[in-house]
């Protein structure tokens, strides 16, 4: 039962296009245990984000489905909090108010006003944002915004934390710093995390398992690699760790030998996918 916390069964996704249905994902089968840290990696346009959106409930699988604790996922909800790639904070609210919006929504009637306040401050402290918590997003750096985005997601006390390339838009130093923070938080809270990434080092350092996706169309899971490294992991020690380097090697081999991207084909797929995604967004709107 422990292994069946979150289950994707034969999940597939087709987007309608003017030229007929475009099959982005097919037969995605994945079981994730409670407390596990799973990375999904693949070339851009392979449907990583679609998998995440399916779990989040922002997209509904057109075939198969997603089960969380045995219940089907068919709409978004705070028990599957999402950290978006571009932080997605409300620009007219301070960091505190952004987290407050989430906390008020999730713990309405469960926590007193003082408890909520404490909980908001606790979560901001968790990402080291106590000093700047009353600043607005346009007054803080990109890394800090992403921290607040993580604090907001954590404050929902999610069963699964979904992160969509959370550090993709950050510089290397900030990224390393935030990766360490996420590892600490994960060690503390032991929550289930699914992270989309295109960074091999990031995947190997943070994950318990790395899910490698094949190229689209009809993308699916190619291989799953278990990262059997003790925690806490230190990025400097890892650099010389043979096991760590073996993992990196495996992922790199998958990405650049087995699933080498054919540029022309990939470009064509990408435009097709972009079209369908923008259509999808319009429909959602």
């Amino acid at each position, binding site marked *: 039962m422990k292994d069946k916390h979150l289950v994707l069964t034969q999940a597939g996704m087709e987007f309608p296009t003017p030229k007929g249905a475009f099959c982005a994902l097919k037969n995605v089968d994945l079981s994730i245990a409670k407390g596990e840290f799973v990375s999904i990696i693949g070339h851009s346009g392979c449907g990583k984000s679609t998998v995440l959106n399916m779990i*989040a*409930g*922002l997209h509904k699988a057109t075939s198969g489905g997603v089960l969380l604790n045995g219940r089907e996922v068919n*709409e*978004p*909800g*705070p028990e*599957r*909090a*999402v950290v*978006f790639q*571009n932080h*997605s904070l*409300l*620009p*007219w*609210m301070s960091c505190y108010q952004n987290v407050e*919006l*989430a906390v008020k*929504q*999730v713990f309405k009637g469960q926590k007193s006003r003082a408890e909520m306040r404490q909980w908001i401050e606790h979560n901001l402290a968790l990402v080291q944002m106590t000093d700047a918590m009353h600043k*607005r997003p*346009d007054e803080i750096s990109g890394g800090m915004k992403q921290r607040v985005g993580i604090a907001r997601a954590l404050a*929902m006390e999610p069963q699964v934390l979904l992160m969509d390339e959370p550090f993709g838009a950050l510089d290397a130093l900030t990224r390393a710093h935030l990766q360490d923070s996420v590892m600490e938080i994960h060690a503390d809270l032991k929550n289930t995390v699914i992270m989309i990434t295109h960074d091999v080092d990031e995947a190997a350092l943070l994950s318990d398992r790395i899910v490698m996706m094949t190229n689209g169309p009809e993308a699916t899971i190619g291989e799953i690699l278990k990262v059997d490294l003790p925690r806490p992991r230190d990025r400097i020690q890892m650099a010389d760790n043979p096991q760590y380097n073996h993992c990196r090697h495996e992922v790199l081999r998958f990405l650049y030998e087995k699933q080498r991207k054919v540029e022309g084909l990939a470009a064509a797929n990408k435009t097709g996918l972009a079209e369908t995604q923008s259509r999808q*967004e319009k429909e*959602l*709107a």
Partner: protein
Amino acid sequence: MSAVLLKLKQASPAEWSGEQWRNRLLGSFFPALGLALFLVLWQVGAQQVDTSLGTFPGPLEVVEQWSNLVDEHQQEAERAEAFYERQEERNAALLQENPDAQVRWREFRGRPTFFDQIATSLWTVLSGFLLATLIAIPLGIVIGLNKHVYNAINPVIQIFKPVSPLAWLPLVTLVVSAVYVSDDPAFSRSFLVSMITVTLCSLWPTLINTSVGVGSVNQDLKNVSKVLRLGWLTYVIKVVIPSAIPLMFTGLRLSLSIAWMVLIAAEMLAQNPGLGKFVWDEFQNGSSSSLSRICVAVLVIGVIGFLLDRTLLLVQRWVNWDKSSVAR
């Protein structure tokens, strides 16, 4: 608190550094130069134009008429005061003779002065603009949120948007005369006609901009709202309206400037009290000072329009979350 104090300190000229002085002087030099050039061109150009009412007035004649208008206003105020004094004396005397006497209290009915007309116009334009805003913003939000409502209402908007105030005026006049029948009216009919015409012409920019602003909420913020399962009302208040505020204000400022332009035209055509009527009366009057007085009115109309826009700009700066956007 200390930040405020610091700002106040910097605001006082005694604390300005040499560079600040230079920037301020440079900042006011070019606007002053522009105005001065305009006045010279006006003076020179005006002398070349001969009308049936004499030479076109230059700035000096206009300033003179302005002070005449101020004097007339003061005289009219004194006359009103004298009238009330006389009335009070007369009625007091009557009551002393016979405590049961029926005394009448009349209101002073003098000619409205230039400044009375300004007050009327301002009051009318603000009422009309407020009514337009109260209709346009809620409606704009509803239209922006729902594609079907938008598609249903859009044709009507597109047809009525370009209608000139002059076309609305006869209809509004007739409808108000027919519908607004009361022995003791709270508002005069002419006020209602002007105001409704202003509303009908000025609500479109706010309506359209609000609906566009509401419709263009960032997809990521929509996703956040979905993950949080925000209720409809919370979503509208916390996400949709703040997103739409910059465009909403663009619409409001367009609406207000249209409202002011439309009002003057409506007052001229309908002979409703206000600055428009002042201009029309002077035009019909045709005395040697009429042209200068119309020029005074034109300048005052321009200055008031400018001040109205600035006021709204201040409100926008205060309300808008996006302080980095340069509002001008």
